[in-house]
């Protein structure tokens, strides 16, 4: 008689299994992570369509083109990126003590969380790309409305557009992860210091730019690189945030 080796459980599971299990833990609740954002986005689109319809019926035809152009700067889809930042903060902060109680190492927890963020970025980039293409194909939902196909995500091909969305989502997810890691590590005191430092650095850089008269240069850099170029550059802060999150989490302890 032979014993089926597959029936026996390994004494210790592989690192990959452990990381995937953390991702499964994050994705236990599908609704708020995978469905709800689309519903909210749909609602925002509906409101945009209504507003445009009200505007269009009130404006003389000559001004409509102007108004349509300015809609290229619509920030209506920003919601989903901020939502994902909050998702990352929640995932790290609320699940960290829980996962540790389940005997997960901090490293596996963070890598599993990162895997979740990458998967969610792919999922939402795909959806956003499809919506942008649909918007373009229907001539702005039949009304000339722009919400997904806007100047911030301007791209020549659907694939480029997908890459753009993906890089943007990764940026927001990992900035959220790093921010949550600061909180998990040092609690509210850490948050105060973190945001104070962030504000000082921002003001410092703004002063530097003003003092050296380099604002045109900065603006030029953005237009020169284009949306995709800027997005590729975002990999630098995204990676820095991802690494910082890991380093911070490895020294964090759950609240007692």
């Amino acid at each position, binding site marked *: 008689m032979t014993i089926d080796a597959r029936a026996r459980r390994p004494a*210790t599971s592989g690192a990959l299994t452990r990381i995937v299990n953390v991702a*499964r*833990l994050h994705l236990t609740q599908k609704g708020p992570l995978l469905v709800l954002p689309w519903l909210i986005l749909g609602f925002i689109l509906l409101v945009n369509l209504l507003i445009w319809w009200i505007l269009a019926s009130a404006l003389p035809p000559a001004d409509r083109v102007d108004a349509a152009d300015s809609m290229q700067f619509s920030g209506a889809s920003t919601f989903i990126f901020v939502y994902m930042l909050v998702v990352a903060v929640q995932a790290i902060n609320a699940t960290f003590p*829980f996962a*540790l109680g389940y*005997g997960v190492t901090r490293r596996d927890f963070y890598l599993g969380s990162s895997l979740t963020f990458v998967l969610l970025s792919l999922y939402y980039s795909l959806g956003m790309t499809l919506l942008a293409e649909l918007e373009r194909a229907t001539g702005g939902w039949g009304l000339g409305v722009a919400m997904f196909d806007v100047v911030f995500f301007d791209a020549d091909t659907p694939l480029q557009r997908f890459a753009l969305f993906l890089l943007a989502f990764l940026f927001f997810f990992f900035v959220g992860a790093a921010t949550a890691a600061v909180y998990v590590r040092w609690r509210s005191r850490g948050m105060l210091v973190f945001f104070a430092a962030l504000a000082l650095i921002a003001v410092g850089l703004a002063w530097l730019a003003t003092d050296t008269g380099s604002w045109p240069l900065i603006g030029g850099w953005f237009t020169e690189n284009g949306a995709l170029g800027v997005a590729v550059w975002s990999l630098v802060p995204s990676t820095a945030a991802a690494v910082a999150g890991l380093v911070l989490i490895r020294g964090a302890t759950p609240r007692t």
Partner: protein
Amino acid sequence: MSTVIEVSGLSKRFGKVVALDDVSFSVGENKICGLLGRNGAGKTTLMQLLTGQQFATSGTIEIFGRSPVETASVLERICFIKESQTYPEDFSVKHVFTSAPWFFSGWDASFAEQLIDDFRIPTNRRVKKLSRGQLSAVGVVVGLASRAPLTFFDEPYLGLDAVARQTFYDRLLEDYAKHPRTVILSTHLIDEVSNLLEHVIVLDQGRVIIDGAADDVRSSATTVVGPRGAVDAFVGDRAALSRQGVGGLASVTIHALTSDERHAAGDAGLELSPVSLQQLIIHRTNSSSREFEQSA
């Protein structure tokens, strides 16, 4: 007997507060060990250190022969159920029991079902909406059904009624008999769990004041009862753990007596009674805080 937990010279400070001070002990495989002590004695901190959740200030911890900190091969054999366990945002009870098997290779789903029935846990309810007792019951079910080789229960019964607590003790013993494992149980209800425990560790102000087999600890003291004069004469200059008197009667708890001494007590017309674990711990923790105050 192999050792599962080996702690030596362990200290933990939070700023100026010394939570644990030079703690050393070991726990053998497949023992049910009580970690007892007053509030703030350092029980939770000790458990957090043993499960790698906190970092030691000094000293060493070996669980299954290795440091638990960030060691996956050690941590995946541990289940830590704490009183103040937080759950992911909007988790329902169902989600807890769906996800637990991914992390505990010994998880027994049918045992979990049985326990959920026993404790009447509403599985569709959100964890946030559970009562204190139901929340504790969820933790108890995870702790038992995970069958982790090393299971920690930190005050697992908060808000559980007497019936549910008895169910917990019964199921723990039954399942432990079938699937032996090491269980560390921290609790205030010392008399209730007294019969479960094989090993007792008592912490007081961050130090280990009792560490031994439960039976040895129980028989380490005895109470002498009788007329005041006779009791005082018998006790003499033996150290008294506690002293009480009503009218002409006195009752003094002293360290264990030899069989000759027990005979002598009988001859003197004195009664000897055993000391419960709870009383003993009350005496010992009280006396050590008195000593502390005197030396301060």
